[in-house]
């Protein structure tokens, strides 16, 4: 079964009344991979998970599990198991009762139940917790029990709906490591939903960036981060600066662009002449004190805001002749710049990325002001 997709969605659309939650979703989840659905709240990622689990029936389209069409099958007859955002441990059962629930319902013999529950608890590092009650557990422990309760059934695919969202930051980081380890040790297929791009990067084999009920990009964390397919993906993953530029000339991967009336160099494969979006990660922006007369093609600006982030400084720079403020990050070892200080702005050409800008609906819908009047 290894060549076949564990989960396949074919043209899945979903409407709640007049609201379209998902439109024509296509997706393959490979055997044993950890795939993340990443997007802002309301992008349809949880609806998609609930459709796969069988809690919602898609308006159109098909859901296949290991090649089998399960679109019309209710949740309790699907080999999927879910870890919910809030704790859904049964309060009237102890940890053993909770973890054994699926096995008991499936009629697994007692002795095997005990053995499998023990293994599952060992997997989530909570062996010996069989007789605890859910109110005696911490938030992180509850979610680990929920993970054990799902995995003990050896599901075709494990669905995780923002399972760490309700936890404190420190526990969340520990749980991420725990999830990675559990995924490695079980080799199970994980489909993970989150709105936290940092979490998605840290966990995933592949990320599906979703927006407004549709897929924006599918790729490895490095691909999605380094070569975003859309301005939405660029902004949502990595909080990049997305700036309107005009491509002046292209020679191989070396591209000249016009930005804020300056001519700048960018390295990007496959660029074409004309309007484009320049994607610039904050950490690729270099900010320096303006000590001398600026060169003709040098970008200059004023520091508007400084925040110390432990690992470095986060700046907002009002670049001369540029409408949007530029986000920049500088290492803690660099000299701290003050608000209102005049600065020069530069970047490494290879740390940039260009996206075609055709002023389509998607770009126009973004939070950046669109500039229709850019000179050709």
């Amino acid at each position, binding site marked *: 079964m290894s060549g076949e997709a564990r989960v396949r969605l074919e043209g899945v659309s979903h409407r709640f009344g007049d609201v379209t939650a998902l439109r024509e979703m296509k997706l393959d989840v490979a055997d044993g991979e950890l795939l993340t659905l990443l997007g802002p709240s309301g992008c349809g990622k949880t609806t998609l998970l609930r459709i796969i689990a069988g809690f919602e029936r898609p308006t159109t389209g098909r859901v296949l599990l290991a090649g089998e069409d399960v679109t019309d099958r209710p949740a309790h007859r699907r080999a999927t198991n879910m870890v919910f955002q809030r704790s859904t441990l049964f*309060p009237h059962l102890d940890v053993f009762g909770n973890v054994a629930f699926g096995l008991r319902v499936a009629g697994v013999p007692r002795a095997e139940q005990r053995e499998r529950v023990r293994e599952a608890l060992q997997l989530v590092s909570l062996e010996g917790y069989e007789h605890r009650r859910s109110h005696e557990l911490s938030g992180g422990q509850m979610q680990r029990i929920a993970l054990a309760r799902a995995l003990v059934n050896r599901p075709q695919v494990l669905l995780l709906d923002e399972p760490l969202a309700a936890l404190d930051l420190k526990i969340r980081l520990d749980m991420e490591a725990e999830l990675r380890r559990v995924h490695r040790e079980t080799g199970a297929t994980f489909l993970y939903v989150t709105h936290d791009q940092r979490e998605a990067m840290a966990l995933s084999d592949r990320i599906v960036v979703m927006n407004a009920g549709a897929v924006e990009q599918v790729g490895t964390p490095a691909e999605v981060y380094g070569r975003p397919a859309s301005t939405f993906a660029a902004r949502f993953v990595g909080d990049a600066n997305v700036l309107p530029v005009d491509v002046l000339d292209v020679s191989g991967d070396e591209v000249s662009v016009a930005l804020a009336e300056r001519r700048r160099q960018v390295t990007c494969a496959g660029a074409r002449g004309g309007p484009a979006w320049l994607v610039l990660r904050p950490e690729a922006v270099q900010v320096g004190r303006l000590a001398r007369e600026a060169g003709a093609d040098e970008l200059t600006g004023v520091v508007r805001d400084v925040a110390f982030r432990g690992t470095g400084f986060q700046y907002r720079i009002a670049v001369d002749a540029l409408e949007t403020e530029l986000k920049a990050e500088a290492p803690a070892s660099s000299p701290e710049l003050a608000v209102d200080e005049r600065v020069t702005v530069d970047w490494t050409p290879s740390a940039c990325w260009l996206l075609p800008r055709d002023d389509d609906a998607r770009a126009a819908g973004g939070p950046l002001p669109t500039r229709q009047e850019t000179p050709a």
Partner: protein
Amino acid sequence: MTGPGRSGLAGAFTVAGVVFLWGPLLVVVLFSLHSTAALSFPFRGFSLRWYEEIFSSAEVRSAAENSLIVATATAATTLVLGTLAAYGLTRTSSRARGPLALLFFLPITLPGLFIGTALLVAFARIEVTLSLATVAAAHLVYVFPFFFLIARAALDRLDPALEEAAADLGAGRWLVFRRVTLPQVWPVLVGAACLAFALSFDEFIITFFVIGPDSTLPMFIWSTLRRTIDPSINAISTLLLLFTLLLFVVTFALTSWSERRRRGSAEPLVVPALKDAP
């Protein structure tokens, strides 16, 4: 009442209220233990003779038996039907949900006199002979809203995600109900059934209209009092009072135990019917 708001007047009103509520009851209890047949002071000493009298009376025993039969039948039927109604209505997304719920608990506002006459006319129309069965049916109409309100409040407060989680783990509808829903609410449901039992057990007005040749305890008390002032009535009333109180205590204990069991999700369970119960 403590603090600056405390005043002598408020205290006096409180005492007067308590005396007004409980005084007559205490008098009944006291005279059920009186050694003479006199129903007025001075009190001449304690004795259990009136209790002996009622326990040896075949009439009282048969009336008590009838009351038990009717109350048990009413409570059992209410438990099943009320649970089904409340579960169905809390788990459906149908438009009829609101109106149906209203229909189920609105009879709580009907006067017993109205229920009694309406049912009497209805039974006559469909030519049903009046018996203990008609009494139980009438009591069902009367106690159902109380049960329904309590059951619905308890079921409404369950987290629907728990039932979803159970379905996700492979449990079909019935297993979800039996393994997840019922274990969380049964104490409340049994408590509410006790309340239904208590309401039915000492119900008089509706019973008066729809009972046939049989008698229940409240009917017996009433008919005896019509003829004469018999001190043994005090003993029956006292036992009736204790029994009903016991059922209310059981109801309360079960609902609050169930509440304590679900620690973690705060917000105390409101038992509307307990406050309004006669």
